[in-house]
């Protein structure tokens, strides 16, 4: 049997490898099913929001009713029935505890099972966690320590009440309310998410992280994250996501906005491991996400790193608006699609300022019957003198029934700009596999080793605490696919 044949066979033998597929049995409170102005009002009331926030949501909802779902991405799915879902679900009686001791032990147990210890004494050294369970934040760690440094790290629902001026000043300024169908939906019904503000000149003393968990059935998760790095500050933020194994598809439509003021730097990392559906394509999360960063001030920098291994459908394009002069945007991505997963992901680098620089490194791996698309735009506007972009997109195919696609858009309107794009598509070389086998490494491990090597440039961008985890995840995602 040839190695290629063997690989294909093993791709077919996907096991039940998703280890986050359990459900937490906890009493939930939900909004009535369906989506209407009343749903929006219900969510806003639940959050105890001020009138301005409700008005903002209602305006978004009105706009959304006139919008149409986009269909340009290379993803195919059953039409989503927006009336047949819950838009708010929260564990009963657990909003915003002052201390972790008050948090429902069932929730603490859930996060422990997910490998996210919330007890501060147990927490990973130097990582503060905001835990979002369905529609609410259930715990935020290290708040006191961060407060000392002047860093605000809290659920966005709390920020709307406690820091209305900051929220009003920045919310919706990077991703406008009417940006796109899913972002507008999110603007109307977002439930929770994280707010971060790093004051002038402050280097955030620890990694910040939000852990998103979908638990309730028939429920969408619509989180909203806003991170503002004031002049000369630095913050590194990481998000992780998991969901139970279910036969239904659940919608996740998040919006993330980043604002970097003069000289500030934001490093945003994602390890996305939503339930991908089973080997027949049943179930899994529909992940429609709008993420955008605005390098608003000169010499600011925004760096996106993503490891996308989960979700039945991924539709996300973390982007950078390089508005200030001498700003830098980066996008490092690993997208793995296996079985019937479909991923359409990439970035936009919009060069508006002078001497702006961007770098895109994308590694796509397709296996099973999955379709994996890189879609990216590099746009240089007339005033962006000396703009520079370098893009490298590599795709790896495992088996002959999957697809790997590359759709780059390169638009330059400045003669001094320089844009370089390179892309390759190939399979795992048979001689590499044989070499590993000859040295006694079993096939499955050999594939994981080679793929991790293929992804290395991206993996090494992740914060140390998560790099090892992500590396294992790459292996596990393919373990499902390659034996």
């Amino acid at each position, binding site marked *: 049997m040839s190695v*290629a044949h063997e690989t294909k066979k093993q791709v077919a033998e996907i096991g039940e490898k998703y280890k986050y597929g359990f459900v937490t049995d906890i009493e939930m409170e939900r909004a009535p099913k369906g989506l209407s102005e009343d749903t929006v009002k219900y969510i806003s009331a639940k959050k105890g929001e001020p009138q301005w926030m409700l008005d903002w949501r209602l305006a978004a909802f009105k706009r959304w009713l006139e919008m149409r779902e986009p269909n*340009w991405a290379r993803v195919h799915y059953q039409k989503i029935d927006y009336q047949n879902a819950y838009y708010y679900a929260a564990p009963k009686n657990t909003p915003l505890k002052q201390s972790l001791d008050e948090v429902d032990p069932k929730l603490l147990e859930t996060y422990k099972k997910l490998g996210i210890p919330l007890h501060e004494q147990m927490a990973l050294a130097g990582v503060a966690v905001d835990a979002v369970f369905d529609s609410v934040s259930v715990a935020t760690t290290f708040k006191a320590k961060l407060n000392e440094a002047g860093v605000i790290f809290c659920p966005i629902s709390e920020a709307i009440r406690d820091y209305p001026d900051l929220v009003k000043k920045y919310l919706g300024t990077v991703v406008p309310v009417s940006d796109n169908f899913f972002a507008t939906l999110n603007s109307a019904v977002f439930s929770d998410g994280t707010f971060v503000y790093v004051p002038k000149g402050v280097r955030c003393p620890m990694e910040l992280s939000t852990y998103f968990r979908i638990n309730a059935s028939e429920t969408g998760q619509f989180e909203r994250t806003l991170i503002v790095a004031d002049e000369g500050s630095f913050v590194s933020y990481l998000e992780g996501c998991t969901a139970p194994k279910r036969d239904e598809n659940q919608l996740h439509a998040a919006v993330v906005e980043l604002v970097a003021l003069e000289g500030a730097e934001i490093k945003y990392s994602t390890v996305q491991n939503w339930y991908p559906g089973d080997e027949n394509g049943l179930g899994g999360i529909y992940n429609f996400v709008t993420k955008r960063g605005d390098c608003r001030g000169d010499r600011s920098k925004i760096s996106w790193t993503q490891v996308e291994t989960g979700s039945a459908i991924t539709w996300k394009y973390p982007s950078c608006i390089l508005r200030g002069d001498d700003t830098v945007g980066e996008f490092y991505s690993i997208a793995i699609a296996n079985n019937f997963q479909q991923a359409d992901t990439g970035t936009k680098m919009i060069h508006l300022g002078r001497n702006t620089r961007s770098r895109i490194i994308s590694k796509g791996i397709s296996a099973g019957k999955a379709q994996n698309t890189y879609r990216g735009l590099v746009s*240089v506007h*007339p005033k962006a003198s000396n703009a520079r972009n370098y893009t490298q997109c590599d*795709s790896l*195919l*495992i*088996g*002959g*029934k*999957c*697809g*790997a*696609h*590359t*759709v*780059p*858009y*390169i*638009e*330059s*309107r*400045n*003669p*001094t*700009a*320089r*844009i*370089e*794009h*390179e*892309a*390759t*598509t*190939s*399979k795992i070389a048979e001689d590499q596999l044989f070499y590993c086998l000859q040295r006694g490494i079993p096939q499955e491990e050999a594939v994981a080793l080679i793929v991790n090597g293929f992804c290395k440039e991206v993996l090494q961008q992740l914060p140390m605490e998560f790099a090892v985890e992500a590396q294992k995840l790459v292996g596990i995602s393919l373990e499902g696919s390659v034996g």
Partner: protein
Amino acid sequence: MSSASAHWLDERRALAANRFAALGVPHRRIEDWKYSDLRTAIDGANDDAAASWKIATLPEGIELFDLADVGAAPDWVKAHLGTLPQNAMASSSFAHARTGFAVRVPRNKSAEPLHVTFANAGSARALVVLEDGAALTLCETLVTDGYANLGLEFIVGANAQLTHIRMAPHSAGAVQVEQYAVTVAHDGVYRAHFFNGGAKLSRAELQIALAGANAQAHLSGVSVLGGTAHADITTHITHAVSHTASTQLFKKIAGGKSRAVYQGRITVEQGADKSDSRQTAKALLMGERAEADLKPELEIYADDVKCAHGAAVGDLDANSLFYLRARGIPEAEARNMLVRAFLEEAVDEIADESLRATVWQAVEDALPGAMLP
């Protein structure tokens, strides 16, 4: 004889007309026409006018048929005319055109170069059939003005070789729309070079199917644009079966307020293993208000393939420029040298020396305009 009397033709024309009616004139909100807003450019002009074509001398051994007499078409025309995929505009030209020509190179015949010129405004069609083992060099020149919509179909048989040189010198007021639908049978080769001087809007679209094992397509081209010229080369090569190969090398110079567009899609279908595909598109912007848009796209459904694309937009390499100036070459001259070297790489893909010289002359004629800021 009336041109529209044959049943087979009426049927194909009706299908094309329906397709066009459904699709309409493309505009910038249609993904494939994002960088070429045809609807705005033609502003209501219709496809009923007839563009003219002229073949100065017909080389020995080539059979020519005037599509104006299409009702009396021989079997080989009936077998192929209108059978290859048509985009919206090719559907329109097929439905509307009443002028055009068809040529056939018989089995194992190597013909002398065939020179054809399209002129005036309106629609026209062409069909080129190379039977198995045949060889032909087709030199096509566009001197259209106003709005011309041309649809060409090339059937490249097994072991046949079609070399295609397409010259479109600058024509400020023209809107040139062309679709080239090409199918290449096993061991056949299609080579093409496109020279674009630009027009008000120029769109050349190639739909190439590598339909048999060892079929190959090798495309190259240069766009040398100045003023407000626009030139869009859009290619779609489908590797339908295994062991097929394609290469592309397109170079663009955009001065003034011109706009150079390249969209290239490569599809490798499931099972088309051992396909080899390379694609390079590069643009130099010379004008402060010039624009380059490149979209090199890969669509891969087979794992045992080698596909790579590269694209770059920039200005002249500062180091090279400095090196030349340090050797005493004045800046303007140094820039000229580097620009020529940049374009030469693509023109060098033309094997025939005299054809290469012809294309290079067109480059030289267009360069002064394209070097203006």
